[in-house]
């Protein structure tokens, strides 16, 4: 199953080594710009993404040591669109050649607009709103999308053969969209869906879980939210013990942090994850990332760090490629990025004409006694799923 990865990696490696041979070393320092929420309500995700980006810069610098160097200038956008726009404008004035980072469609929208006006490439994983990639921005790229998460969850639930699923979703932009996507896909597959909306202030999920238990009587609970929501939902579920066969979540659930900090709460819970945990960093690419990351930071990287890393690495490689052919600008970097087709930590990445990654499909992991096993798709699984299985049985 790793054949494909190894093949493409070696292809990339070959391509790179050829590049290195054919282009005389002409040392250049590439300045990248990053705006990300390091404070405010998105500080947590912003910090994760930021660390991934720093790791990528480290890896790029080691790789091109002596030939080129990369530097990233970061400005905290404080989770605010206006400040993100200011950040982009300021970074442009400081001479950055491309942007990586950003979180939340509402912030990425105006910020990438500003990057567009300044003729800079903008690559991100933080915004899943559909319209973002339909604005005709040549330099706008994102490596993930709602569909990729949705497809994985739909696939998993179809494999389980469930007939009735309750979806608990936060009323944020990304969560609403994802919940709608999954609902549509599952309904077409003949699954009955009952949706329960909550908001960021919801602390006590007993009421919702009780409804699932007494009224919905569904076979699985799908949680579309963030860490705090998952912990609240799982605690309430563990208490009320609805008769479901699976507890399934999306991002930030099948993470090392959750596995180490809440092992009993997470037992048997599913969540999207590209890699198992503890990460069997088997491939050389994974090892490179892990070494670079743990050298700087003392926790285990989650999807945020991985995605931040991948997008920045892709951007860096595209810049190097563009440089090797002559001029580095919006047009040449975009062209190179559009040529991307490779396996990464975040799965296969290829960009369509809108800058979206149609190949993006998440995998699904399941928490097992403090570890995370990949259980979907079959081609990537590290273990069979424990089904039916919930934290309480």
């Amino acid at each position: 199953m790793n054949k494909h990865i190894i093949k493409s990696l070696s292809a990339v490696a070959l391509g790179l080594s050829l590049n290195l041979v054919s282009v005389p070393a002409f040392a250049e320092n590439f300045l990248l710009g990053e705006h990300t929420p390091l404070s405010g309500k998105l500080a947590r995700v912003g910090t994760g993404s930021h660390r991934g980006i720093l790791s990528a810069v480290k890896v790029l610098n080691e790789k091109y040591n002596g030939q080129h160097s990369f530097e990233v200038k970061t400005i905290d956008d404080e989770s605010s669109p206006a400040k993100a726009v200011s950040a982009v404008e300021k970074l442009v004035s400081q001479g950055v050649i491309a942007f990586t980072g950003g979180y939340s469609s509402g912030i990425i929208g105006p910020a990438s607009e500003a990057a567009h006006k300044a003729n800079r490439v903008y690559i991100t994983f933080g915004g899943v709103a559909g319209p973002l990639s339909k604005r005709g921005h040549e330099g706008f790229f994102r490596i993930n999308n709602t569909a990729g998460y949705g497809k994985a969850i739909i696939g998993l639930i179809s494999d389980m053969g469930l007939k009735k699923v309750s979806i608990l979703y936060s009323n944020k932009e990304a969560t609403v969209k994802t919940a709608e996507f999954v609902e549509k896909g599952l309904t077409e597959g003949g699954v009955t869906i009952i949706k329960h909306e909550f908001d960021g202030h919801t602390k006590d999920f007993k009421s919702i879980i009780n409804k699932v238990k007494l009224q919905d009587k569904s076979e699985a609970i799908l949680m579309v939210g963030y860490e705090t929501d998952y912990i609240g939902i799982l605690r309430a579920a563990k208490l009320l013990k609805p008769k479901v066969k699976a507890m399934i979540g999306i991002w930030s659930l099948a993470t090392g942090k959750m596995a180490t900090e809440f092992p009993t709460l997470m037992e048997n819970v599913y969540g999207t994850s590209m890699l198992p945990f503890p990460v069997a960093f088997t491939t050389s690419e994974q090892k490179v990332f892990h070494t670079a990351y743990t050298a700087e930071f003392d926790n285990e990287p989650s999807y945020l760090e991985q995605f931040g890393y991948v997008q920045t690495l892709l951007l860096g490689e595209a810049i190097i490629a563009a440089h090797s052919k002559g001029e580095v600008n919006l047009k040449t970097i975009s062209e190179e990025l559009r040529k991307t087709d490779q396996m990464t930590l975040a799965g296969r990445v290829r960009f369509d004409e809108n800058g979206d990654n149609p190949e993006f499909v998440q995998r699904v992991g399941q928490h097992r006694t403090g570890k995370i096993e990949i259980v979907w798709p079959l081609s990537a699984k590290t273990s069979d799923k424990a089904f039916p299985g919930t934290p309480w049985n």
Partner: protein
Amino acid sequence: MSNFRIFAPLAIVMYIIVPFLFSGNDYLMGMIATALIIAGIALAWALLGNLGGMVSFGHAAFFGVGAYTSAVLTMDYNVPVFLAMIIAGFGASLASVFMMPALRLHGPYFALAILAYAHIFMILATEMTSITGGAAGLLSIPNLPVFMGFDFGTKLGGYIVILNIVSLALVVYHLIRRSTYGLALKAMHDSELATRIVGVPATQLKAIMLVVSAFITGCVGAFNAHFINFLDPEYAFSGEWTVIPIVAAIFGGYRTLSGPVLGALFIYLADQLVFKSLLPQGHQLILGALLGGMILLSPSGLLPIITNMFKRFSKKGDAQHVES
């Protein structure tokens, strides 16, 4: 007289010197325009606070309603942007009419009631998906237009528009304050009982101030929507649209005309340009400390300090210069 001494140089700086020096620098122009957005709300807030004697914790409500009104009108009904911005002001005023039952409340009760209204508006914006786009918000809201051959969609154009909005608001504020209404309102602020005896309908006057304040805030909110081209409920009704302007108004001296504007320019620009470069993460900490220190050391705001500086400067015969 003292008004003129502050406003003449301020107007020269804002209308001539700033565009002359920075028009090529999108970053700075955008930054100053955002500071003026805060200034506009701060001014509207101070108008209600100073003349109406009411502290509002919910100006984000007017800001958000204005923003959504203008965005929806321009996107779904093709209303021209500038017209939509004015209608947005009326929309915010209409929202303030719903708040009028709260006018019989006092002090913190009124402040909190308005906060609750703002929160309710935010939840409604999230839930009324068909009109507002729900939590996903509205992307690609039309830019400010090209008007009489000038592209207001640029940073410089945006700056000029918001500067004019703030200037107009200042003029309105000044006229109200000077009118008989203003005198009655001032008397009311000193003693409500006194005005009742004199026969001024206090609640009616307060209601008018609320409507005017909402109108200004709504226009500013509409401007921001077209300036940033994006809205979602959490952003449009964010508590920051209430809190930062209040801080700015009090910091600048909310009982004066120019205080809220100077306060907003200072707070926002100092925070973003100076503190943020000193302490990239957690620069809000400096802002917090500065606020606390200011309240303790110069409780009537920043303006007295500046006017004092002015006096010292003019005594020395130096060139007039406002640093903000």
